[in-house]
């Protein structure tokens, strides 16, 4: 009867740093239908990567697909192009890549979790979460020279080395961070009101997760142990002892907890990587032009990121295809709203931590 209220959520909305729009039909604030538009950020990067940019500098473009996981895109691209050029990065470079990748994951997860808290109306938890995140950001800025766009990958290695002192510093800071993160973890884990707002909201069963090919922490929160770090060999994760973190609750809360667990695991990984940091060059020279095709899967903070590269022996590639984690999580996200309350829509959206910038490229 006469009780429908259509509520727009996005593209500009304070809870959404990115343009994406949801249009909810609500009855008494219960969502009955939803329309999603994910195309706001489309810039045409795939096209530019095969016309405007040469294979040597296309990675600067590709890393700017996304600020959260610029390192993932750099990784996806460089691992592929190295395969096409047939060069192998030295071990030390691989370890440095791993360290930066995991640092990036830590900052991304911390922010994502904090953001869920923020939109759940829990301002202080947001502040406590992002407060600690600054430690990682400072580390990243120290190592790479920028807080967001690290541009550390280069074909055949990395552009900057980690010196002895820096390594020590990283270790010290990370140990400090670990304590703090454990404290924040505890808040997420035990906070009563936060639980009220997140537990049981937007439940995804293991079966659904598989049917919809959900990836990343969202899948792992439903008990689906999928992680490109374990399913694809691109960085020496086996050597530092990577383990997949899962929960089985499958709701907003579990997603946060999985991220928090991964943060702690990532800290461990980095600490181990620094301890085992091999000596040697950080870069090798390469020759030739990319030719042939390759498939790459790397694990972004939000899940598996897929790259397809095809070269034809010229300076410009023939096809670059990026399939990012959010891209494969949107279909299930769309299904989750019906029956939930509008006041829970923001935590649901942000528990997916959606990145439109990479979904639409």
């Amino acid at each position, binding site marked *: 009867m006469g009780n429908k*209220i*259509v*509520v*727009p959520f996005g593209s500009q*909305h*304070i*809870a959404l740093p990115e343009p994406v729009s949801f249009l909810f039909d609500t009855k008494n*604030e219960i969502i009955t239908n939803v329309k999603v538009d994910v195309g706001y950020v489309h810039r045409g990067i795939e096209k530019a990567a095969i016309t405007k940019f040469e294979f040597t500098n296309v990675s600067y473009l590709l890393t700017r697909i996304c600020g959260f996981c610029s390192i993932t895109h750099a990784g996806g691209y460089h691992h592929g192009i190295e395969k096409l050029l047939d060069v192998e990065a030295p071990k030390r470079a691989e370890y440095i890549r791993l360290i930066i990748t995991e640092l990036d994951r830590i900052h991304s997860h911390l922010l994502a979790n904090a953001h869920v*808290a*923020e*939109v*759940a*109306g*829990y*301002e*202080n*938890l947001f*502040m*406590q979460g992002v*407060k600690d995140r600054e430690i990682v950001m400072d580390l990243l800025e120290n190592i790479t020279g920028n807080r967001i766009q690290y541009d550390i990958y280069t074909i055949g290695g990395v552009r900057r080395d980690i010196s002895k002192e820096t390594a020590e510093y990283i270790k010290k800071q990370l140990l400090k961070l670990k304590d703090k993160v454990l404290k924040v973890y505890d808040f997420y884990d035990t*906070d009563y*009101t*936060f639980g*009220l*707002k*997140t537990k049981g909201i937007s439940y995804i069963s293991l079966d659904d997760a598989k049917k919809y090919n959900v990836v990343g922490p969202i899948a792992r929160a439903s008990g689906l142990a999928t992680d490109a770090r374990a399913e694809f060999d691109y960085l020496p994760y086996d050597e530092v002892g990577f383990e997949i973190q899962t929960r089985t609750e499958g709701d907003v809360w579990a997603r946060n907890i999985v991220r928090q667990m991964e943060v702690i695991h990532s800290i461990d990984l980095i600490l181990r990587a620094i301890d085992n940091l091999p000596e040697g060059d950080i870069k090798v020279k390469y020759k030739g032009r990319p030719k042939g095709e390759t498939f790459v899967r790397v694990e972004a903070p939000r899940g598996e990121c897929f790259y397809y590269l095809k070269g034809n022996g010229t300076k410009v590639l023939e096809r670059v295809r990026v399939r990012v984690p959010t891209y494969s999580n949107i279909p299930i996200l769309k299904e989750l709203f019906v029956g939930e*309350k*509008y*006041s*829970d*829509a*923001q935590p649901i959206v942000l528990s997916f931590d959606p990145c439109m910038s990479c979904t639409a490229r």
Partner: protein
Amino acid sequence: MISVILTIFAPILGGFVYGIERIVRARMQSRMGPPLMQPFYDFFKLMDKRPIMIHSFHALMGIMYFIAEWFALAVLLLGNDLLIAVFFHVIAVLALVIGASSVRSSYSVLGALRELMHMISYEPLMVLMVVSFYLVVGSFDIKDVLHYNGYPILDLPLVFIAFLLTIPMLLQKSPFDVAEAHQEIIGGPEIEYSGPFYEALYTGKWIEYIYVFTFAFLFGGSHYWLGAILVIFAFLFINLLDNSTARLDFRRMVKFAWIVLIPMAALNVILLALI
């Protein structure tokens, strides 16, 4: 005399309270926070904004909200009946709700509807609180309460706790800031106001601080030091609560008010009446 002065300067005092609150909140979040005078800076800035509006009706309701809020405070401080003051507050809510509903913006309308849910949660409790004052003091007159020689707080501990938990509903604080819900409906009723019209709402909220804390003060009876302590305690408590809870759904708020708070207050009143 004091009450006249208090009434007249309520917006200023409220502004300071709000300023302190912003600092306290920032500190609780390990931030530095804005300067104390920040609310007034905001006030002056808004004053100087070029006014835009959706339509006059809506803009007018913003101003009416401010006036009604002030008037409710005047009735509380200058009148003699607490109960009437409680009901005068409804006029302010009316202006807010009608104004917010008068624009075709779903956020604003949702905010208005949620504001109604606020009202259903706190209104009966406020009535109960006033009645419990009557039981203790034997009068609805605010002056009698302020001259009461005992310690109302000792007679009304549960009512005070219930009231303490109602303040977040009145002042739009987490966990019950559902009508404002910045991350959901971006301020709810206030979203469509801007410039000087928003100013009216912004300042109205300050007055509401005074209005609410006056009630907290009354729990001290004629012992003004006790009243002051209670006010400070209430202030700190709601800010701590604000900073340590997520926003709950309005359904939970209504349920909480009706299942926990009202029976609690009623129990106190019954015990008091029987003894």
